């Protein structure tokens, strides 16, 4: 069962690898300078359409910039922001979860209260308010994305730590005389890592979508930087006249979210002990 890989999963994983490579290469993978404007070839269609030109594979945007190249740098930004935000949230949340799970008692109560407070507000509300009132910068934006989902990690980690602490192996390791740091760092963390990784596969697309929604409301990544959400948000008015501007980034966001979801499901199936057959 472990060895068989579903073909859909394989396609999704391959797609993600391509996305990752493009995101890493960024402008180096772009066929054109993504910032090079060409007012004479504004709104050129994709190469295979009537209004297309062989020079621009996926057409151009309202400034005559090569859409494919824009998508690649947008991809770099979207994926970068999502990964960075996820990492910040996961690290902070996991740390909080460990602290909570280790001390229990009032420390736990206090930390979980903070988690409750964040949970009582839909994140987009927090994001909108902070971005609109504090002004938007890439640093604030990434920080904000880092605030997203930390509470999920905190709660998840706390629960996992509490249950891992009660597992026989933890008791055995404590009774060996191990320090808490050793127990958490060397034993519990590796054991709960799989659950955290599965959670990562949920956070990454959630941040990409959040960034998209914020871009729609005009509060996402700001020009001259660009992101998939921003290209999509800009392109939405052009859906009737230059569909490619919105459709390609829309499809890309969709495909990334879908693929990460598929791969996440596969990871979950692989990690989830309840789905493993240990029957006699």
């Amino acid at each position, binding site marked *: *069962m472990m*060895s068989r890989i579903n073909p859909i999963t394989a396609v999704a994983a391959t797609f993600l690898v391509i996305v990752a490579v493009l995101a890493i290469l960024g402008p180096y993978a772009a066929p054109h300078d993504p910032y090079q404007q060409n007012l004479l070839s504004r709104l050129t269609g994709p190469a295979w359409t009537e209004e297309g030109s062989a020079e621009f594979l996926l057409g151009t945007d309202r400034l005559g910039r090569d859409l494919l190249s824009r998508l690649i740098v947008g991809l770099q930004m979207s994926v970068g922001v999502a990964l960075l935000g996820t990492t910040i949230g996961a690290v902070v949340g996991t740390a909080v979860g460990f602290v909570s799970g280790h001390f229990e008692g009032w420390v736990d109560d206090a930390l979980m209260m903070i988690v409750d407070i964040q949970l009582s507000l839909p994140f987009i509300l927090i994001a909108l308010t902070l971005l609109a009132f504090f002004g938007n910068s890439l640093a604030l934006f990434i920080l904000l994305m880092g605030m997203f989902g930390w509470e999920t990690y905190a709660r998840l980690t706390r629960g996992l730590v509490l249950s891992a602490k009660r*597992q*026989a*192996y933890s*008791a*055995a*390791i*404590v*009774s*060996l*005389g*191990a*320090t808490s740091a*050793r127990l958490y760092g*060397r*034993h519990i963390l*590796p*054991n709960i890592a799989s659950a955290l990784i599965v959670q990562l596969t949920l956070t990454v697309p959630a941040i990409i979508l959040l960034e998209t929604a914020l871009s729609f409301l005009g509060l996402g990544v700001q020009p001259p930087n660009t992101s998939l959400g921003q290209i999509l948000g800009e392109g939405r008015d052009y859906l009737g006249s230059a569909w490619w501007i919105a459709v390609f980034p829309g499809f890309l966001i969709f495909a990334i979210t879908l693929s990460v979801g598929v791969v996440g499901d596969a990871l979950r199936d692989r990690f989830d002990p309840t789905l493993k*057959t*240990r029957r*006699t």
Partner: protein
Amino acid sequence: MTDLHPETASPVAQGAAPLLRWEGLSVPLPTGADRPYAVQGLTLDLQQNEVLCLVGESGSGKSVTALATMGLLKGEMSHTSGAIRFGGKDLTSLAPEARRHLTGARLSMVFQEPIASLNPFYTAGAQVSETISTHSTRPAPEIRDKVLALFEEVRLPNPEQIYRAYPHELSGGQCQRVMIASALALDPAVLIADEPTTALDVTTQAQILSLMLTLRDNHRTGILFITHDFGVVSEIADRVAVMRYGELVEIGPREQILTDPQHDYTKTLLAAVPKLAPRASRPVSGDPVLRVESLSKTYRSGGVLRRSRREVQAVLDASLQIRPGETLGVVGESGSGKTTLSQCIIRMVEPTEGKVEIAGQDFLALKGKHLRAARRRVQIIFQDPYTSLDARQKIGDAIAEGPVIHGASTRDATRISHDLLEAVGLDPVAADRYPHEFSGGQRQRICIARALALQPDLLIADESVSALDVSVQAQILKLLSEIQAERGFGMLFVTHDLRVASQICDRICVMQQGRIVESGAPDQLFANAQEAYTRALLAAVPGATRVFG
């Protein structure tokens, strides 16, 4: 309660058409399993008014046989071959709907975990009623009366109250009685009981076994009774079938199998069965490695805001001593406080009161780094070998970890780990493998090695062999004895199984509701128990007086 019906072996008219007949039944395993078939070519019959015990170790295919008979297999495993004949029909080729009409009505089943087999959402009464309403159109009041009568029959106290109770409000034994009531509701011809008493305490087990025999007699039901415990077999079986690796090894009347087994495998199994063979205590000397005085543990539930705090006395005023080379057994039924006691000693749980001295050192007064340093003196082995190893750590590292923590060089620790692997009967080459590559028994050996790596003065074995098959159990017990003899540590052996305790312990403490009610050397204790509770425990041990093999 010793032998329940010594002479009336099988009142079955031999030669009559069997009630249920398995003809060359094979059940495939999903691809990728360690063997192609869970059950292969099983041919067997069950007679009316008979208890047929299906015996085997884990993985022998006995449960799969039960599920196949009831038509409960899923996925690839449901593609069985062969036939299961019942009332002139082959169950495996019946249409699903036709088969469903038989299931629960003519053939019924009781499962191993009674609490888990009741739906937490409905009352006990509703769930038994459902069995009846599924297969008949009787009016509701009539069903209710019938259910109450069944509860009466399975000797549930207070049927009316049980009827309204949810599963979580019932004990394991009560749940199993409810399940049996449900299984018998429509007076089935065949009852399949899959390890129905394994999860229960010995006293409850004895009651359930006696109940099943009564039912067999009253309803003339054919019972397929699945168990791994020859003690139970000796109490209940009319005939015994032994399975291994999905195949039938041997079948015969109870007495023949128990006293004169033909097959080597059966012989091995019987030899490994723990016997209630109380030994005398060995002479020991030296200062105690463990001294527990007036230890108590009270659990309090409820927070600041709660007016009514609930208190549970898990351990109350327990005192005991263990000297080097000595093994002290702690026995008792579930909830008696024996595990809490052992956890208090190693401070996995902080005791409320009392004193614990390990190797002359006040263990409870220690903190931080001193506590960590002192922990090397006491080590523990748990019940479940699957969860007591870190699944992501190589076993060599797991064994070496203790010495490393206490300052050994990596090289020394590795050497210790290799030596110990050898000492517990594993190839040192295995050090680089992960726990999941080992069987349960092997894992328990690894746990022992890990505990011993620190050369503790005291070793606590908390139900350490309870989850293992008998043959493995015997090996592990032997290993522990040998190593103890060699290294001279004191051992606190916690178990619910008096047979096991009787064999390995120098002294035994019997716990009931948090207190140590009685203690003494096994031979004295068992021959001359002072407490009624101790006597009840002893009486309930299945096959207590029996000599196997």
